[in-house]
């Protein structure tokens, strides 16, 4: 189970087409970034891939079978979605939150099994939240919460991890941590898809870019093929100055159109 494919997918809301028709295939073990300005359809596409939303026409396939035809639980065992933030009024502990991630693997009445405990334990270690297991989740900082969310999605042991703006509310150090974590996961064989409006932050982690504008696919491929001057001008309405960095990936420094 390792290929997610959208085929002519279209999503309409309130009479408008907000995404599509769009076709895209994402294979195993990559870290892909969906980028584009606000309203370009990144979040929508991410939700389509995770099975949360169904396309109004066209389909999304997981390894050849349409996601809409399978029960949610089955999909949840393969695809995990990490939302932008968790707003919660209730004081669940981190351990309880992580345990909820095993929903797809448990029946209604089965108690917690050894497999469950192992998965939770591994995920907690992976995301470095083991020391937080007993804390109430609404007492954590933004960065800690984000790591908990990722840990929770790992608990389901999926092949695909989809993250929606994972660094939007984080300070710099935590943002780097999260992205490092994502890259490590990709290197271990998971397919990581990140939707972000700040593509600069992900350039050195991501192997493949998908550029969206107004719900259409503009370009996809490696960084230099996608993030051309022309593309940036058309899609983001700014001009980019590329600055070399020690990390290998360039930094894109932006100027208003016409001033660079």
């Amino acid at each position, binding site marked *: 189970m390792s290929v997610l494919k959208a085929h002519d997918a279209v999503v309409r809301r309130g009479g408008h087409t907000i995404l599509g028709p769009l076709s895209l295939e994402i294979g195993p073990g990559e870290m892909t970034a969906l980028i584009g300005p606000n309203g370009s359809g990144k979040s929508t596409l991410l*939700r389509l891939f*995770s*099975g*949360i939303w169904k396309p109004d026409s066209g389909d999304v396939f997981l390894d050849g079978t349409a996601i809409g035809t399978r*029960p*949610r*639980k*089955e*999909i*949840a*065992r393969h*695809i*995990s*979605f990490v*939302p932008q933030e*968790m*707003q*919660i*009024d*209730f*004081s*669940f*502990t981190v*351990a*309880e*939150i*992580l*345990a*909820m*991630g095993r*929903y*797809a693997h*448990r029946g*209604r009445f089965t108690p*917690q099994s050894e497999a469950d*405990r*192992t998965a*939770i*334990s*591994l995920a907690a*270690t992976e995301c470095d939240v*083991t020391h937080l*297991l*007993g804390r109430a989740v609404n*007492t954590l900082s933004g960065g800690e919460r984000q790591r908990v969310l990722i840990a929770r*999605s790992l608990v*389901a042991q999926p092949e695909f991890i989809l993250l929606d703006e994972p660094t939007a509310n984080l300070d710099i150090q935590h943002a780097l941590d999260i992205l490092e974590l994502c890259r490590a996961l990709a290197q271990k064989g998971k397919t990581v898809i990140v939707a972000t409006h700040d593509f600069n932050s992900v350039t050195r982690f991501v192997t493949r870019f998908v550029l969206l504008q107004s719900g259409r696919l503009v370009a996809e491929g490696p960084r230099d093929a996608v993030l051309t001057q022309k593309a940036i001008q058309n899609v983001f309405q700014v001009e980019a100055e590329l600055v070399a960095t020690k990390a290998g990936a360039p930094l894109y420094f932006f100027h208003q159109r016409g001033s660079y």
Partner: protein
Amino acid sequence: MSAPTSNALELNRTAGSRLRSSLFYAFLLPILFLCLLAAIGIGSSPIAWSTILRVIEYKVLPHEWTSSIQVTQADQVIVWLIRIPRVMVAFFVGAGLASAGVIMQALFRNPLAEPSLVGAGGGAVLGGVTAFVAGWSATSVLSLPLLAMLGSLLALVLVYVMSTRGGVTPVTTLLLSGVAVTALLFAISNLLISLNIVNWQIEQEIVLWMMGGLDARTWTHVWLCAPFVLLGLVASLIQTRDLDLLQLGEETAASFGVEVESSKRMLTLTAAILTGAAVAVSGMVGFVGLVVPHAVRLILGPSNRRLLPASVLTGGAFLVVCDLIARTIHPPTEIRLGIVTALFGGPLFIYLLLRRYRGAVNT
């Protein structure tokens, strides 16, 4: 790569929370038992405990064993036909309302939600008022509870149909529809009441019924509400994990495998059954579904698997006590049950609110 097995740290429950759970039940169960005893033993006519026990033996044990027991007809009727059914109904109503409150608070992701939000209360009242003004409540014991239950179910269906588009029922729309339908149904009830203002005896009874009360509850009422409350409780217990996940957000829940729409449907239906069964036999009793889950959550935490059974027992005990107070505090008049729960629940609710907001300001 080895993972720490964390056996020392039980991943779901810390030692502290298990202790709290055990303590909670260690207090609650005896208190519940005492409340039940007190409610059966105390009433407007004094009856000795030995008599009560004798009546129970007489009624429960087979005939051959009880030939020597002497109990007067009056004692039998008072203990077996008046007090015991009434206490049982009080327990079931409290349990049902508390459980519906747990569901509502999880579904709407808000600890201040309560059972009547999806229109079930308004529907039950309309059903009840109809039974009264049509005169059926005077001729049959079953008409009032049945119409109230039907009313609450029909109101739920109406609310659900109004707020569903393309198979999706957004929770905010559900809430708003519930409020709108409740307002509408109450308006119709008031219309019926005003048109019949001439029949002052019926009007009096309607007003008293709407304030909630367990006067003249019989075994018929027990058999009417208990199956539905038990059904609702079982349905809720089955869905505690769905409740937990829904509390974290619908998208999250969906991504972890919850069939969100069908789950929401089942849960609102369960809440409506519980609320409808309760209102059918007790009229409008407020605050139980709001305050009990909230208070229990403060002690036991938000995990619905622990919260639900605890709220059920606490809600039952709470209402048994309120009913006891309602009938003994100002003899010979009985204070309406809804008033007693409001007098207790109101200040408690305000305290919980202040605590919440003071806490929010401090963090």
